[in-house]
Each structure stands twice: as C-alpha cells, then as structure tokens.
C-alpha cells in the first residue's frame, strides 16, 4: 500500500496540472472583448482536413522512424565492441534538443536546393516533414529500444546456438518477444512527438495544406484568442492519443522475467557483422549530416563575439538550472508511478498497471501553450506570476519529460521488481536499503538515460518561457530565436552549437555519474 500513496499523489498532481488549466480555459467568460465561439468544430471542413493530415503525417513519420530504429538498435546491440560506439550513441540523444527552427535550417543545408543532397522543391511537403521527423525520432527510438536486447538472458542465446537457430528464428523466438514489451510505448511516444510537431510541419510542409491540430490550437489561443476552443481542441488531441495508446498497448506483451545474467553481444558471422555496420553507418550519416552542417556553419560564424557576451552565460546558467531541476522532478515522479505499476503488474493486475503508465505517458500531447495559459489564468489573480516563472517552467518541463521517464525506466523497473521482489521480502530489505542494494545497482543505467534525456529536452525547450515573459534573455533556446528574429543568423547558429555542446556534456555527465561506467557498453 505504501507504494500506492506516492503514486496516487503523482497522479493527482498530473491531473491537476493537466486538467486544471484546461478547465480554467473553458470557464473564461468575462474577458473583455471575448465572445465564446461555436464549439461544434466537427462540422468544420477545415478542421476535418487538419485532423486527417495530423494523423496521417504522424503515423507515417512514426513508422519510418521506428521500423529502421529497430534494425539499427539491433545492430548496435549485436556489435558491442564497435569503436566509437558510445560516442555515436550519445550523439543519438542530440537531435531531440535541436530547436525546431535550427533543425529546419540544418535539414535545408543538407537537402535544400544548394545543399549536399539537393532535393529541390520536392523537399517542401511530406518529404521534408518525414525527413525532419525521422531525424528527430529515429535516434531517440534507437536509444529507447537498445536496452531490450541487453535484457535478454544469456542462456537464451546459448540455447539458440545449441538448437542451431538461424537469424530469423532467433529474431522470432528470442528478440521479438523481448521487444514487444517496449515497442508499443516507443511507438506511442514517437507518434505523440510527431503529432504535436508545429514549426517543422508548417515550414517544411510547404503551406497550409500541411496544418496539424497543434497549429489549430495555437491559432485558437493566439490569433483568434478563443481559449475555450483551444481547450476543446487540446482535449480532442488528448482523446486521439488515448485511442492510439489503447491500440498500441493491444500489441504489448510482457515477457516472462527470469533471474539470470545477460550478455547480449553475440558472436555472429561476418556477413551479419557487415550488415550491422552498414546499418549503423547509414543511420549515423542520416543523423549526423544535419548536425555536421550546423557545426560547419557555426564554426564559420562569429564564435568569439557570441561567447564573450555575458548574457549568453547567464542564459546558459538558467538553461542548466531548468534542465537539471526538471529532470530531477520528472524522474522522481516517474519513479513513484512506475514503482506502483510494477508491483501491480507483479500482482497480476496488468490492466491497471498499464493504465497508470498510460496516464504518465500521455501528458505530452497537451500543448504547453494550453497548460501554460491555463495555469496563468489560475495563478494570476492569486500570485504575481513573474515570481513564479521558473517554478512554472520547471513544472511544465518536468511534466513533458514524464513520458520519456516512463519509456526509459518502465520495462527495467518491472523486470527488477519481478526478479527481486520476493528475494527482498525474504531478506527483509525495504525502503532505503532496498533502493541502495537492489534497485540502484540494477536500475542506474536506465535511470541515467531517463534523467539525461529529460534534462536535455528541458534545456532545448522554448515554449513556456516565451509565454510567461521575461525581463532578460532567460534561456539559450530563447536567445537563439531572438537572434534569428533580428537578422543574426550566424550568431544564432553559434548559440545553437553551444546549446548542443552543453546538452552533449550534460547528457554524457549524467549518464556517466548516474548510469555508471558501463553505461552504453554491450
């Protein structure tokens, strides 16, 4: 029961942070000059088209990002001794933090009409959207799926050798069952990320034909200033994701958990080895080229002028503060949720366990703009919002990071609980001792990944800080946008590179400190 209390607390906070602001938006009647609009949006042809396009591009992007990611993650898992492997895997955490507008520029540097691999005008449209979404999400999916191979018990591989299984049979009977635990969650996460994509879709999409639901929400809240409609559209988006979540969870199977050692790197034939290396090289090129083009642009820019600006270092400090605090909060909340859902799953109440994971996963699709505005409506009559900018920004970023925590930690915590719960009971290990001797050593690797991902995600976030306003340039992401808005494209590229280097450093440090030395090694 002691596990249920913190979990319930987290769920209550989630509900409060997500539903509270939405309700507040519905009840905004007395704003001067605000007339509530007709909410029968389903009769609107424009919105139907937007809905269709959002779903279509998100589904296609998800498939194109996750299916290759399975192959690439498998290649990484099989080739544990590859030189530069750890560096490449860290690089794979980076696209997530590239601010959307910088990513668009980098992708155009590679595929634009004067780029390295020019696609000309055909870049603008579904091609550009897919390239950008695969760039963002393929590396993320690789990082999230890779641990599944590392959890495969050693004797499964030995057995497969004794039975003379071929690669297909090994995949079918050993790897696929393991993958089925994590894959639905990863699909859902990537789907949500693509569904809520905004600047990328609008800019690379070629025009308003490529309008997503997220754009419609933004339009309602900003341009038309119709908060009730925005809240309704946000609910619609939430509902859609719920449906997709239920569909993906249908294919989820939790594998049996055994107490065993696991050593994933398998001796393989040289043909397999070369195929794996080919896959890794291809994925690295795809992810690396836009990053490389950015690096080249930035190094040709006014590096000294940018880094000698005192405001840059202030912005860097608050970026770090926001990133680290949000990551810590997010991981704590995720830990409590998962601890409870793991014990539920262990007790055979899998439906309820999944529901809890789902609640934590789905918050991502409520646009920060909606949460932020709603929070503003709730808070501004009571407190001076200016004093609350940092807590609010941190809270919203922690909230947005929760789905990543659930994905990174979920499978590992469930397995850990299933393997060692009875042992812990026998030994009377509880509380801190259980954490120290059983959970920490075995979970620090996924914990390091989770904390690193949420930190870099929050560090790259722009949305909320711009919404609440600031008297000075407060984060690096905001600084990049301001520079771009003032013709300072070269400066913005340098700032973006600094943000990326900072993220890379923080990610590597967190993974090393928390994850331990063998972080991503086979």
């Amino acid at each position: 029961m002691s596990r249920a209390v913190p979990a319930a607390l987290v769920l209550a906070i989630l509900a409060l942070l997500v539903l509270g602001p939405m309700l507040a938006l519905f009840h905004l009647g007395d704003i001067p000059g605000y007339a509530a609009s007709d909410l029968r949006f389903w009769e609107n042809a424009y919105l139907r088209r937007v809905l269709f396009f959002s779903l279509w591009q998100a589904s296609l992007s998800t498939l194109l990002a996750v299916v290759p990611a399975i192959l690439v993650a498998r290649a990484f898992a099989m080739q544990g001794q590859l030189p530069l492997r750890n560096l490449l895997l860290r690089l794979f955490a980076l696209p997530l933090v590239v601010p959307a507008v910088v990513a668009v520029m980098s992708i155009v540097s590679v595929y634009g009409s004067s780029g390295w691999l020019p696609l000309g005008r055909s870049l603008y449209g579904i091609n550009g959207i897919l390239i950008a979404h695969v760039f963002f999400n393929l590396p993320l999916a690789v990082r999230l799926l890779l641990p599944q191979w590392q959890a495969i018990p050693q004797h499964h591989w030995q057995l497969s050798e004794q039975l003379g299984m071929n690669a297909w049979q090994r995949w079918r009977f050993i790897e696929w069952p393991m993958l089925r635990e994590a894959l639905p969650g990863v699909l859902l996460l990537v789907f949500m990320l693509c569904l809520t994509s905004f600047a990328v879709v609008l800019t690379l999409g070629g025009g308003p034909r490529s309008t997503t639901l997220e754009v419609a929400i933004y339009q309602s809240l900003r341009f038309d200033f119709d908060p009730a409609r925005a809240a309704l559209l946000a609910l619609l988006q939430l509902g859609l994701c719920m449906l997709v979540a239920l569909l993906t969870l249908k294919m989820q199977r939790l594998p049996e958990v055994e107490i065993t050692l696991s050593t994933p790197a398998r001796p393989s034939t040289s043909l397999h080895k070369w195929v794996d290396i080919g896959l890794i090289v291809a994925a690295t090129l795809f992810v690396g080229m836009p990053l490389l083009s950015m690096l080249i642009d930035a190094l040709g820019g006014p590096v000294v002028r940018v880094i000698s600006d005192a405001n840059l270092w202030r912005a860097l400090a608050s970026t770090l503060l926001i990133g680290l605090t949000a990551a810590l909060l997010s991981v704590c909340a995720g830990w409590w949720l998962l601890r409870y859902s793991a014990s539920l799953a262990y007790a055979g109440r899998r439906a309820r366990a999944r529901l809890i994971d789902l609640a934590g996963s789905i918050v991502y699709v409520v646009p920060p703009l909606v949460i932020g505005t709603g929070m503003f409506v709730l808070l501004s009559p009571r407190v001076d919002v200016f004093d609350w900018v940092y807590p609010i920004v941190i809270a919203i970023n922690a909230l947005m990071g929760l789905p990543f925590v659930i994905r990174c930690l979920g499978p590992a915590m469930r397995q850990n609980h299933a393997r060692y719960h009875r042992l812990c009971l026998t030994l009377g290990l509880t509380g801190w001792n259980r954490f120290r001797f059983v959970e920490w050593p075995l979970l620090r690797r996924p914990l390091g990944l989770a904390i690193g991902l949420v930190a870099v995600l929050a560090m790259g976030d722009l949305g909320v800080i711009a919404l609440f306003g600031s008297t000075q340039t407060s984060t690096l992401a905001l600084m990049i946008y301001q520079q771009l808005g003032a013709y300072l494209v070269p400066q913005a590229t340098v700032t973006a590179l600094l943000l990326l280097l900072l993220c890379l450093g923080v990610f590597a440090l967190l993974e090393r400190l928390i994850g331990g030395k063998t972080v991503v090694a086979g």
Partner: protein
Amino acid sequence: MLSVLPRIGSGLIALLVVTSLQAATPTLVVYTYDSFTSDWGPGPRVKAAFEANCNCKLDLVGLSDGVAMLNRLKLEGAGSRADILLGIDTNITADARASGLFEAHGLTLQDSALPQSWQDDLFLPYDFGYFAFVYNRERVTNPPTSLRQLVEDDNGPTLLIQDPRTSTPGLGLLLWMKKVFGEDSDQAWERLSKRIVTVSKGWSEAYGLFLKGEADMVLSYTTSPAYHIIAEQDSRYAAAAFTEGHYQQIEVAGLVRGSQQKQLAREFLEFMISAEFQQIIPTTNWMYPVIAGKSLLPAEFDQLIDPAPALLLDERQVAAERKRWVDEWLEVMSR
C-alpha cells in the same frame, strides 16, 4: 517534490521583496515583444536613456509578440502590472480598443514622419515600416515592378512567405493582396501559390531559408537591405519596389487603464516620440522613426526604395474581415 515548488517561488518572492525595498524609486512596467528587449534590440539603449532622467526603474518585459502581449493583458485584466503596452500594430488596435483596457495618452505626434496624419487618442506610434519582397541582386536581375506582375508572371521568381495565422508579415501580405486585388484576391493567390516554395510559421524561418538560397524572394520589409548594408557591409540584397505601393505596418504603444503610475507612463510615452528614442529605432528595430528629421536616419537608408504610396486598410475593416479572409486564404492555399 511538491514542497519544492512553493519554496522556489517564495525564495524568488523574498528576493524580490528585498530588491524592491532597496529601491524606493518607482518602477514602470512595459510589456513589449522580446526582440525589442533582446540585447541587439532597442531595449537596452531605451532603458538606459530613460532611466538616466526619470529617477525610476524601467522594466521591459519581453513577450513573444504583439498578439501575445494583448492576450496577456486581457487575461490579467484590472490586476495587470503593466503600465504600458508597446509593440502592437494597427492590425490589432481595433481589438485592443474594444477591450476597454487602455486610456487616452493625451499626447500629439509633432513633426510626424508618417505618410498619413495620425489622430488616435488611445494609441501612439513609435515606428513604422513597409512589407516588401527582398531578393539577392546577383540571383534576380530583373525583379517584378508590381504586385500584379509578380502574381501574373508564371515564370516569375519563387517565393518564401509567412503564415497569416502566425506571423505579422504573413498577415500583412494577405491585406496587401486584398488591397490590390480586392475581390479577385482568391484567383491571385491561386496563381501565386504555384511559385510559393513554403509558408513558414514566422519571419525568422522564411528569412533564414532565403539566406540559404531556397527561393528567389522572401516576404520581409523594405528596410531589410539596410541591415545587410550597415551591419554586414553587404549590398547584394534589395527590396523590389512595386508600383501599386507597399502595405504599411505601424507599431504603437498604449497606456494601460489600470496603471498606478500614469504620470510616469505619460513621461515614457513622451520620451518615446522624442528624438532620443527615435534615433535608436532605425538600426536596432530596422524600422522608420515616426518623427521627421534627416539626422535620425543613417545615410545608408537613402539607398532603400521609395515605398510610396503607403497602403493601409482601416483597422475596423481588418478586425471585421480578418477571420473570413484568413479562412478564404486557407481554402485557396489548401487546394
């Protein structure tokens, strides 16, 4: 974990109380857009110049843009801390007027540089500019000379524009097309759309893509080339002068009705239309000052095109028709 949030909040409050105790001087709060407050915007110099004489503290609060500012003020209502809103343009002044949140500034614009006379008791302009298509002379040697020619020449230049739902220049082009083509603007958009490479969320994306060479022309301002000439000593960029004239953007400020320091606020507005403030504008906001005087403009501005005649729709008409026009535009552009 829950207890951490209020602690940070109260920490910040405590910090603020301490700092406000130290400073007994009044603080004037101005909501503006964040490119105004950024280090390379007018903000820092405006703040320094005003604080030098006002015996007060000027807080420039940067929000994302004019629309965000106005929405924020509406949400805060009477409880707002803002004394002045600086940075909304004439496309949303009707909306701002209807909110009832502003009060007469009581000032007159002397020596106006605006092409039209300015009579508005609620809003006072501080700068203005004109939308234009900017191109690279080395790439486009024979730019169109009218909006009509741009639309009707099917072999004309490729374009990058912004979305009127999310961007000020994007809305500006929509109104420009309306002004020139009237009821035929749908057909004009349909014809133009074939040469539009992409429609971006904001000005930055489109301009960035243009600098990368993704299209022949980008929707921007007649003053954009001045940035390249002055800051980069690069005179390759030019704005195409159109015979119909160019659609105008006038940026204004207003005095918030709920302000506790109206005297100080009026002093700021007066400062805003003085030469000291106005001479900061051309090379930080890259717009024209609202008061006349050759000395306010750098010499390089002489190389810019003459945008006359200035085109501007009445704010009431924009407020009444904007939504319908945007829906029409969406319909045409989604075909």
